[in-house]
Every structure is written in C-alpha cells, then in structure tokens.
C-alpha cells in the first residue's frame, strides 16, 4: 500500500515494569511528604526546584543520554514510563520537563563541546529550566517568518528583536532561540535561520509577563536588545536551522503528555459517577477509556519505533493530532456525562474544580507545540498529497 501506517504492538519490556513500580513508590512518598498534590495539576506549583532535584538524583532526567554528559544510557521506553507516571500523578516537573524532552537532545546533537559539558549534566541533576523561543509577534506557526535578528560581531553575535508566547521564560535559565542570521534566498525561504542556546542572564534580555485567560502566568514576551551570544552558543549550522527541526519533533509530538494533560478529568469523572453507573454513564466511561487506551497504544508504539532507531514522523504527528483533539474534548464530554449526578456526590466539588480548570486550558492543547492545522499539513505531506 502506498500509505502504510506502522503501529506495531509494543509490549513494554520487564525493566520498564520494574521502573514503573519504583516511580510509583517515589510518587507515593512525595504525596505523603506533601510535595506533590495528585489532585493539583494547575501550573501554579508545578515548578518545583526541590522536586526536580529529587527526580534528577533518582536518575530520571536525561535518562537516554550518554553517561559522559551526566545521562544514564537507559532506553527511550524507560523514559516513556517515567514521563507517563509523572504526568498522570500531576507531578511538578515543569522545571526540567522541556529540557529533558527537547532542549537537551537538541544540544546533545548540535551543541558545541563546551556547551554540552557545561549544561547537560546540570539538566540531568534537575537544576536547569529551558524555554523555547520560536514564536514572534508576527511569526507563529510560520516559523520561517522569524525576524529577530542575530548579527555577527567579534567572537559572537548581537541579538535584537522579540519572542512571544514563550512558556517558562520568566523561570528559565536558558532558552533555545531561533534567530535570523541571513535573509531567506529566492530558492529557499527556510534558509537564514540559526538556533542559539541563550543564557537568560545575558544583559540586554528583558522578560515581560503575558497573563493567560485563567489568570496564570506561563506566557512571556522576551525582548532582546543588543544581547550578546558567544560563537559556541550556536546550535548546529549557521543559517541551517531548518534542517535540524524535523526528526526531533517526533519525540516532542508523540509523548504521553499529548493526550494525558487533562487525564485527571477522566479519573474524577469515574469517581463522580460511582461504582455502579447507569447505562449512559457506563457507556460514556467505556468509550473514553477505549479512546485513551488506543491513544496510549499508538504513542507507545511510536516510542518503540523511536527506540528501534526509526523516524516515524507521520505516525508521531498523527498521535499529537488525534491525542490533542481527544484531550480537548474530554472536559466537555465529562461535563455531559456528569450532568445528572447528585450535588452531594462525594467528589463533586473536586470534579467541578478540575473540570473548570481543564475547560479553560483545553483550547491551548491543539495550539502548543504545533497546531492541528500544521500537523494535518505534515500528515498530508506524508500521505503524498503535497
């Protein structure tokens, strides 16, 4: 068939099962100690230097990276287990999550030796928070329209311009920025952009908050005024960032965080409907469980392919497309299904509180990290339609 989609059935190996037990025991201990609220999940409190350091000490950051750089040379499937257990437990992993998932691997692949030796071990210890500086006021999904400029100077570059919607920037120690180093060419409009590792302490960088509709502070505007970047902070090829951005995205797109971000809604729905729901409630739960099960099996399958050294770009885009649409609909579906539960039901208040929060954050799920429209374009290309 011309359009073969591969989703081999992966059985997680025994070491993953042992690790899962270990992670759950760790989480249980942290819940007892009060450093983790399993019914939390808001972004307030999700950033915890203390928690990230403990996770680092456990060896659960940079799990797949070489030991030379502080990593643990474990498998991608083991990392998968840690990610999903933390996600479902609402663990406060905000400090290290982006660094672990994408900034670290990017540096490992394209960073200068000095940057690798300096930053990667600190990421692994849970000490370093990364932000991603891609979007600009006039460049969102169309990244190649970026205009923030890096101009060559002696021993480095001077950056001017601004990035926006930058999650974590106010807490981040570093940011991976996409800057224009040359104009695009007639033949290739993607030419001329370069990635840099930006130290957020650099003079000339200002971070301004952009509050979200929930009232939370996650987004920022990051302004660069003649900020200096040393040469060895360049990631990969000057003017060639477009070549570096594709295969890594499979990791970013297909992980469990792409359908489990509002999972607590499902858990609380099951609780609010009780042990013996009516037919409507049972059918509703059954369908949602079937859907999330299918998503997880798709995602685990992609993890297995990545583990085997394949590059399932289309399959990964499909996981994010189908997964984020599902998690976005989940709060609305749960609201429908709980419509007739009695107000005095035990966890009704928790359910409603979690539902309100999930309803408000749901719109972002199909925007962050690649919009539905962009993903469907990638899938269409993979199908040979463009």
């Amino acid at each position, binding site marked *: *068939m*011309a*359009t*073969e*989609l*591969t*989703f*081999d*059935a992966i*059985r*997680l190996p025994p070491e993953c099962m042992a690790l*899962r037990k270990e992670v759950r025991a760790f989480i249980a201990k942290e819940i007892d100690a009060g450093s983790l609220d399993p019914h939390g999940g808001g972004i307030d409190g999700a950033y915890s230097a203390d928690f990230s350091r403990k996770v680092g000490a456990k060896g659960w950051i940079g799990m797949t990276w070489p030991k030379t750089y502080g990593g643990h040379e474990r498998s991608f499937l083991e990392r998968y287990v840690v990610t*999903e*257990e933390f996600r*479902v437990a609402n663990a406060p992993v905000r400090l290290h999550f982006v660094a672990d998932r994408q900034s670290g691997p990017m540096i490992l692949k394209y960073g200068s030796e000095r940057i690798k030796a300096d930053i990667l071990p600190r990421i692994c210890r849970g000490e370093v928070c990364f932000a991603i500086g891609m979007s600009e006021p006039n460049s969102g999904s169309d990244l190649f329209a970026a205009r923030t400029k890096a101009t060559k100077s002696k021993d480095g570059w001077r950056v001017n311009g601004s990035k926006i919607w930058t999650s974590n920037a106010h807490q981040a120690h570093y940011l991976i920025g996409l800057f224009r180093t040359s104009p695009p060419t007639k033949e290739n409009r993607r030419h001329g952009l370069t990635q840099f590792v930006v130290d957020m302490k650099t003079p000339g960088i200002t971070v301004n908050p952009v509050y979200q509709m929930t009232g939370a502070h996650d987004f920022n505007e990051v302004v660069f005024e003649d900020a200096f970047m040393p040469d060895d902070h360049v990631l990969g090829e000057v003017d060639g960032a477009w070549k570096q951005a594709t295969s890594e995205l499979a990791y970013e797109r297909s992980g469990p965080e792409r359908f489990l971000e509002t*999972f607590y809604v*499902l*858990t*609380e729905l*099951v*609780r609010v*409907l*009780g*042990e*013996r*729901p009516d*037919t409507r*409630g*049972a*059918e*509703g*739960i*059954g*369908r949602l*469980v*079937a*859907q*999330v*099960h*299918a*998503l*997880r*099996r*798709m995602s685990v*399958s992609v993890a297995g392919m990545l583990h085997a050294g394949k590059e399932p770009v*289309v*399959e990964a885009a*499909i996981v994010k*497309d*189908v997964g984020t649409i599902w998690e976005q609909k989940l709060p609305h579906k749960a609201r429908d299904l709980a419509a007739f539960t009695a107000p005095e039901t035990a966890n009704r208040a928790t359910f409603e509180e979690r539902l309100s929060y999930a309803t408000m954050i749901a719109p972002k799920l199909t925007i962050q990290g690649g919009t539905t*429209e962009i993903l*469907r*374009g990638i*899938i*269409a290309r*993979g*199908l*040979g*339609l*463009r």
Partner: protein
Amino acid sequence: MESENLVAAAATRILGDLADPHSVNRARADAWKAPAWAALEEAGLTLAWVPEGLGGAGAELSDGFAVLRAAGRFAVALPLAETLLAGWLLSKAGIPAPQGAMACAPAREGETLTLSGDGTLSGTLRSIPFAKGARHIAVLAGRQGGGVSVALLDASQAHIDDGNSIAGDPLNGVSFHAARPAAVKDAPADLDGQALQLMGAAARATQMAGALEAILDLAVNYANERVAFARPIAKFQAVQHNLARLAGEAAAAVAAAGSAADAIAHAGVFDEAVLLEAAAAKIRVGEAAGEGAAIAHQVLGAIGFTQEHTLHRFTRRLWAWRDDFGNESAWAVKLGTLVAAKGADGLWPMLAAR
C-alpha cells in the same frame, strides 16, 4: 504492518490473484468465490488456528490475525474470519475441524444455546454471519445441568433464515430444535461466552483495521488523480485535512486492533487485561469505521456512491462488521461497568499494564 509475516503474505497473494476488489466488483456474479475459497483452503489459511493434530495448519494466533488484516484490506466477502474462529473454538475443546466453510455462534452478546441431557442442541440466534452457505456450524452452548460445551454441527441440522448484512453478505437467523451435534466436548475452564465474544471482537476489529487502511489508500490515490478547478483535489487544503483525519482514524484502528491481537496471542487467558484490549479495539475501530467511511465517501464524491466503484465494498463491510461480536455501545457499557467497579484509582494501573 508486520508485512514480513509469511502466512499473511500468502493470503495477500491469493486474494490479489483471485479476489481483487476491482475484478470482483466488475464481475458482479459470485463465480470468483469458489476458486478463491479453494485456494485459501488449499494453503491452509482457513484453518490456520487449528493445530495439525486436529486437521489444521497449526499457525500461530498472530499469523491468523495477520491473515485477517490482509483479508480486511481486500474487503473479502468470504467466511474466512468465521471459519478461522470456528476452527479456533473447536480446537480449544479438542474437536477436529472439518474442511469447508464454517460459521461460528453465538455472534452477539446475550444470545445462548442449550445442550440438553440427551445430547441435543436447541436455541435461536438472531444474526450469524455467513451461516447460509456454511457446511458446518461451531457453537458454544450451555449444558442443561451447568457448564459450557463446544459443539460441531452439520449445517443441515439448523434452520437458517435468509438474510444479508448491509454489505450484502449472509447474516442469518439460526435456530436449532433438538439438533444432533456431530461432535461435542466440554469447553476448557477459560472458555466461556465472553471469551468467544472477545476473540470474535478482536478478529472483526482486525479485519476492519485492514479495510480502513484500504480506504485511506483508495481515497489518497483518488485525490491525487481527480482534477477539479484545474488541479488535483489533493492540492486543496480542505481535502488534505479531511484525509489527514482519515489517516488518524485508520492509525487508531491499526494500533488498537494490533494491540488487542497481540494481547490475545500472548495472554493465553481471557482475563481483564484482554477484556480491556479487545473491547477497546472493537469500540475504537467501530468509531473509526463510522468516521473513516464518511470521510472516504466525501473525498470520492458521487463516483464513490456508485455500484461501479469499489469503495462500497469496503465501507459497507465496515458498517456491517461494527455489529458482529458486540458493537461499540455494547462493549462500552461492559468496559465502563468494569472500570467503574474497579474505581477511579484503578483506571490508570489498568491502562498502563503493558
């Protein structure tokens, strides 16, 4: 898929030669069926799940599922899944499998047959796929004093109604009145009515996943060839996004059905983990069938709505297969009831079991 699977490759070769949807659709008559069936039987594919000692090919469970996925890609209108399931059911009880097409019953939750103390079988079932035309029927029946048995009956022992599914394939009411089985044996401890439904659900889900792959392929090819407004319709973003959604549905189906087949092939027992896998597969694949068929028809427009085009061979079977061995709603109630009974905090451990 696991295209290295030799058994599935044999099925694909035979079906490509003798049951190609284009030729079959053009021919209209059923003359293709006998040679295609004979070739499948000759290759041992119809009794793939029967050990050699019981008259079958002794292939692995995973091989049989791979054959079903291949058959789904051809939307093959032959009782291949039914005969495979019947053979599997018989062999679970140690009954040798006969040659020829078989049906397998019951195919719907809640329907039962009773085996009397005198050894005769009675009961009425609503919708048995391919009962008409089957030489034998393999059944799971409750014994009058308790317990469950597997029985093999010559089709002449049953009263079989006329009737077709919306795919045009036989779907028949079947009744037995003190019928004499050709063979009866007690079912093993792990085989009950639900186990048969789960196995049937996984088999149908696998065929449906194959059919969804096929309509994705068909719709993508059509969009690349069909020109409107001076360019292939594949170049229109609205069409691209519809096809991307179809790919998502096909992907979910392939993953869910593949996972269920793998779970059954490795579990050995029909426990709660298999219930989750097979029920979830039938639910999710059934949903994908509805969504996916709608998108494929939208992309193909009027031509896809004709008898002349092959699309209906796939979409009508996708719709029909949703109802065999438990539809989405039936399994969802069952799965939801189980999840609720285990409690909210049992949900994640259940999902993350493998």
